[in-house]
């Protein structure tokens, strides 16, 4: 046993650091505080409260936590879709606040939780939009900004990777939830990012494509050193595919570390406020979460 009952996050974080590929940080988050600017001044609770952690380059980090724990807000801050009230975020050593939106988009790809496309762009057009941050300077300012042959080749490659290439001509408005989700991941990959941020990437996917996305992310990490930060409610998926897991509750880090450390009965029951069974995956030996099931009579 690797001390799963240990509740000292700092020490375990170091122990789990064997999975970190390089001692080089993709993200350094320092005492981050954030709340939405609302008109009612009475709402003073922080969505994210004094968050500090690092994400190594080439790491797959899962963010888990109950509804309203601040997962999506954290992801937005990492992509600078929102700005924190306090604290700093450094992306590959550079202050995120000092970078242009364009610069960030060349490094960070974002797959949002839900996307609503009103206009009938084709899947191929949608994926090609991922090349927008890499566009050449439109010298004559004509507004056409044609994609280069390389852009098109990259788009096709990621469409094959995400299994949407047969949908190329279809309108995104006519896709099923899973097909649309895969298209969005392909669009983010077309940005050729060094970091991929995903908010519930498997929410609409069937089992086959859940496994497929998990292994695609692992493969991209291995082949291109891609850093992946993903939010998921699926603790088993996170346990199987993530190097480290960040457990959030009420805007604070409850645990951060390898799956054995975070996917642990005590911590999960505390955060999710229900009974949770944790055992081992029969093949990988990684922690596996099971819901308690129907209420059985005592002693059953």
């Amino acid at each position: 046993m690797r001390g799963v009952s240990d509740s000292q996050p700092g020490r375990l974080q170091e122990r789990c650091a064997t999975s970190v590929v390089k001692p080089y940080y993709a993200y350094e988050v320092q005492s981050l505080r954030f709340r939405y600017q609302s008109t009612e001044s009475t709402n003073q609770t922080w969505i994210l409260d004094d968050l500090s952690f690092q994400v190594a380059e080439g790491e797959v980090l899962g963010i888990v936590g109950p509804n309203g724990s601040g997962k999506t807000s954290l992801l937005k801050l990492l992509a600078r879709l929102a700005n924190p009230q306090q604290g700093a975020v450094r992306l590959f050593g550079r202050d995120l606040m000092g970078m242009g939106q364009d610069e960030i988009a060349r490094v960070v790809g974002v797959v949002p939780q839900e996307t609503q496309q009103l206009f009938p762009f084709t899947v191929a057009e949608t994926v090609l939009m991922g090349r927008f941050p890499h566009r050449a300077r439109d010298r004559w300012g004509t507004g056409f900004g044609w994609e280069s042959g390389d852009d098109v080749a990259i788009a096709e490659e990621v469409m094959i990777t995400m299994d949407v290439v047969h949908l190329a001509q279809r309108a995104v408005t006519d896709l099923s939830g899973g097909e649309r989700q895969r298209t969005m991941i392909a669009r983010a990959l077309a940005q050729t990012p060094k970091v991929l941020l995903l908010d519930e990437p498997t929410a609409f996917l069937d089992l086959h494509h859940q496994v497929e996305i998990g292994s695609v992310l692992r493969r991209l990490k291995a082949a291109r050193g891609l850093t992946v930060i993903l939010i998921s409610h699926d603790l088993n998926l996170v346990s199987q595919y993530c190097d480290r897991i960040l457990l959030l509750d009420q805007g604070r880090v409850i645990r951060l570390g390898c799956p054995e450390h975070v996917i642990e009965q005590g911590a999960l029951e505390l955060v999710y406020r229900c009974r949770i069974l944790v055992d081992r995956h029969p093949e990988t030996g990684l922690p596996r979460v099971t819901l308690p099931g129907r209420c059985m009579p005592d002693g059953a």
Partner: protein
Amino acid sequence: MKQPSATGSPRSCVDRLSGGQGSALFSRGSIVQGAILTRSRLILILGLLSLTAVVASLVCLHFGAQPIAYGEMLRLLMGAMTSDQSGTDGASADITRTILLQIRLPRVLMGFIVGCSLASVGVVLQALLRNPLADPYVLGVSSGAALGAALGVLCGAGTTFLAEAALPACGFAGGIMALVIVYRTATGSERLPIHSLLLTGVIVNAIFSALIMFITSILDPNRSYGMMAWLMGTLTSPTYSGLVGVLVYLSISLILLFRQMRALNILALGEDAARSLGIDTEQAKRSIFILTALVTGAVVSVSGMIGFIGMVVPHAVRLAIGADHRLLLPASALVGGIFLMGADTMARTLIAPTEIPVGIITALAGGPFFVYLLLWRKDRLV
């Protein structure tokens, strides 16, 4: 190894990619190339539309209270271009030439540029507000601009409604005011349903229309009649200097707007997605809204409130050629120009010599289309 099927299972696709096997199945980017807008497709469609626009303008010049034969029309147009006065004999030919060159031609050209502008503004507003029913008229931007222009008239900025320099500026001020109100309401909450935006437009329209009616009622009867006709949307025959002024002003604004074509594709994805793809959305929105109000203000000050072109035309064009704004915007502009030239020709000729305000015709054509979209294409709107 099992042979991959035509569509290919996901695993076999990935294997092919990583193993480099069967790469001959794909020539580089050929699949994507077939599903996106290409230069040749753009040139073909825009070329065809331009040709249609030229033919349509000739047809519109032909019709009128008194039709002019095509042969004579072409001869007169050629003559005007080469400043050739020969071959004109007699008073009747002189009258025909005056009708063609001084009355019909400037009006047809004006109709074309106004239609172009309205359709372009419609495309841009639809993308920016992420609402396929957006239109300067429906959202109240036109009535804002009309109120501005009416106030200008009340304060004595020109006794005609032609391109007096102050009127487009007044129209711009009113238009941007309406746009800010509508936009603030639309983005006040996280995600506002499409119909709420339209509702805001209805309210803004109602308030501004009431104010315009008030101004009309305190004007002296002669001017208030002109004001009423203008409000319903009327094209008049401008002088050539006035026409050139409007053309230059609108062309510059439209060219600046067209520079945002590719960015509009991204902005239509929504605020967060556009930012994550590297657009400074605040700055882009601000400049596009200002350009939109500039165009609307100028258009309204020369032609009043011509409605629904900004909604009907982009919608129809999008159904036909797809959503990429690099084609959608110029194609909609051309189709909008053709549409308004045609509608105005009907307005001139249906019950000639009496003219119908062209706004009535576009509203009669566009209103039912709007209802159709609202009732039967809900799936596309929500």
